[in-house]
């Protein structure tokens, strides 16, 4: 079951069949979270149902507050974090947007709140299914932002999230995005580590001289105005830059302690000899990987790259990786109305990251799977064909293609 040495009396890990949401609830137990606040909205709220059960059964010792709104929910953890409590929170779709005022200031205050976003389309018109626009809305604010694609990765990333967010070199909030239904609700076998090992990995949260307490009577977030705001924003920018290295360090040590080694920022699949690749985030990796295997059987040199951390953006990693290919098709499960080339958010970020390179691959944009619509294997083959055609025809007027839209 495990390659790790048996540590005297320490339970190393056990296999469990759990969903992505349950995996993150488990991580709350392992990380000994102090304050959790909840408000119902599908699909993220499954995590809070598990949390509630873990508390009721005495497996998790924390303050659990069912708030009157997402705004209050996020404000509460923000303030709990300021007095030194480890916190967890989450939301989906319009709930995440309802909390947005709190979300913006949490980053401005450098409070290491860890949140789960169960990605959901933004009503109206009503849709519960996955769309990435909810979580992406924090991309400019100073939140660390990651997409996970399996329940195991959800659990592991949550542990990494507390460690990195609470690192004094970082002190930034972190959002873990999990595709609604495809990950929040689907069960997989997950290796759940023992609590002792997790304690080795995540040190206690220590806010030092920034903690709000009568022994440390500081004033937090006074009016700074034009006098100081730029300096303070720049500090947040520096923290985000440092987060890159702190994340790399955390993944390294995670591998050392738990034996699961992964590249922190991007995952490459069948790219060694690939000529063209698709790029995307979240659970679309599954159908894309299946399609890539099928097309490879037919002799096509295609691969896939999954972007794991969106903030900080893996610019150098993607520059290095993507410059090897002739063409790149970016699959966005989001939209950015009126953006350059009317492309998705990831598409435009990637194009921008590649711009400084002397040798740039062609980049083609796809918008697919909105509102939870399934991205099927034929859709993937279609996107790969279109990407190839763009290179063969030498087209430079990059277009964005909506996949599977009924006429």
């Amino acid at each position, binding site marked *: 079951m495990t390659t790790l040495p048996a540590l005297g009396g320490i339970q190393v890990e056990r296999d469990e069949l759990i969903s992505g949401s349950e995996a993150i609830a488990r991580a709350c137990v392992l990380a*000994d979270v*102090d*304050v959790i*606040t909840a408000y119902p909205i599908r699909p993220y709220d499954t995590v809070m149902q598990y949390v509630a059960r873990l508390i009721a059964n005495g497996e998790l*010792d*924390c*303050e659990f*507050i069912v*708030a*009157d*709104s997402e*705004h*209050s*929910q996020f*404000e*509460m*953890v*923000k*303030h*709990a*974090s*300021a*007095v*030194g*409590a480890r*916190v967890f929170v989450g939301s989906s779709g319009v709930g995440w947007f309802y909390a947005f*005022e*709190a979300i913006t*200031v949490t980053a401005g205050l450098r409070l290491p709140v860890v949140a789960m976003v169960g990605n959901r389309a933004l009503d109206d018109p009503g849709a519960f299914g996955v769309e990435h626009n909810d979580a992406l809305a924090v991309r400019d604010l100073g939140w660390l932002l990651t997409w996970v694609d399996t329940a195991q990765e959800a659990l592991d990333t949550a542990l990494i999230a507390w460690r990195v967010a609470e690192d004094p070199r970082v002190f930034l909030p972190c959002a873990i995005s999990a595709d609604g239904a495809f990950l929040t609700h689907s069960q997989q076998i997950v290796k759940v580590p023992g609590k002792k090992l997790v304690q080795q990995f995540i040190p*206690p949260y220590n806010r030092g001289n920034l903690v*709000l*307490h*009568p022994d*440390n*009577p*500081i*004033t*937090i*977030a*006074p*009016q*700074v*105005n034009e*006098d*100081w705001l730029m300096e303070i924003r720049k500090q947040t920018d520096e923290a985000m830059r440092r987060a890159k290295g702190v994340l790399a360090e955390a993944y390294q040590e995670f591998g050392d302690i738990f034996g699961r080694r992964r590249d922190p920022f991007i995952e490459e699949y069948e790219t060694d000899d690939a000529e063209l690749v698709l790029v995307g985030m979240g659970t679309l990796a599954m159908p894309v990987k299946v399609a890539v295997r099928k097309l490879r059987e037919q002799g096509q040199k295609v691969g896939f790259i999954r972007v794991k951390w969106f903030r900080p953006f893996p610019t150098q990693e993607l520059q290095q990786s993507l410059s090897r290919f002739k063409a790149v098709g970016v699959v966005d499960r989001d939209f950015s109305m009126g953006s350059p080339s009317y492309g998705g958010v990831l598409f435009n970020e990637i194009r921008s990251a590649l711009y400084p390179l002397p040798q740039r691959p062609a980049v083609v944009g796809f918008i697919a799977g909105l509102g939870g619509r399934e991205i099927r294997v034929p859709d993937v083959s279609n996107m790969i064909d279109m990407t190839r055609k763009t290179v063969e025809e030498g087209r430079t007027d990059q277009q964005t293609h909506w996949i599977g839209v009924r006429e």
Partner: protein
Amino acid sequence: MTTLQSLSQIRGVKNVPWDEYYTSGHRTCQGCESALALRLMAKAAGPRTIVLGSTGCMYVANTTYYTTPWVVPWMHTQLGSAGSAATGTAAGLKALMRKEKIKEEPINVIAVCGDGGGADMGLSAISAALTQTEYNLLIFLYDNESYANTDIQVSGTSPWGANTTFSPPGRVHRIMNRRWKKNVAGMLATGHPECRYVATTCTSYPLDLQNKVRKALTTGGPTFIHTLDPCPKGWDYDPRYSHELGELAVETGMWVLYEVQDSKLTLNGPSKALANGTKQRKPVEEYLMRQGRFAHFTPEDTSYVQRKIDDMWTKWWVPGVIPFQNEVVT
């Protein structure tokens, strides 16, 4: 529930503590009674206190970077977040103490908000906080009867007819604010039967204010205080009359001093005398005509306000608290 501090009731002005925890450094207007309310509140609560402050005059005019007046730890919270800020802070402290991550000790948690932040935007969060009986916290609503910081706009607690920048008297509409002031403390006291302490007060009665803060903090659980604070800028009068106007608000019966402790209601100070008839209410005109915000009032407008106040004192089940008629249809 974590333990509470022992803060005794202050008997007489000579026994008011010397130490100040809200000092110089702020730049509120001359005669600002909200600033005085905070000073008295901080004095009463003492050093082992955390204050959360919502956006508003008491944030913007109070906590300029490098010149904070707060001696106790203070943190900004969003305009509608007093309830959630207090709850989150109290929850954080409680979890950390229970899990022995910090020293177990009673720490006062007070969230301050204005009428805009508390009575309008943050009402839901305050209501939720008052149901969280496991946490010790105080929501302190300072009511200057407008969104003052943004240049005096009408709020849910502005008086009927008041001239504000969103309710200016004009040629066609003399009265732009046709809403009656919300009965905030009454609504919160009756709506949250598990909340053990709700009170109203006014800066013109500093001992009343300080003792109510102490009662709230020593009663425990979630508690609420609503203070009426004359605001020279928003009410348009010479700052030297702040204290007098607070007294007139109470003596005309427009503002009622009371407390509800463990479901027991007590009228306090002059309000008690008005209720038991040992003192007569002054005409509201004496209060209204001292303020520029009512300068456009016709005699009919003044009589309308007087009638409403008379009704409150004669027809309400409990004057100033419960607006139902004093009989139940069965």
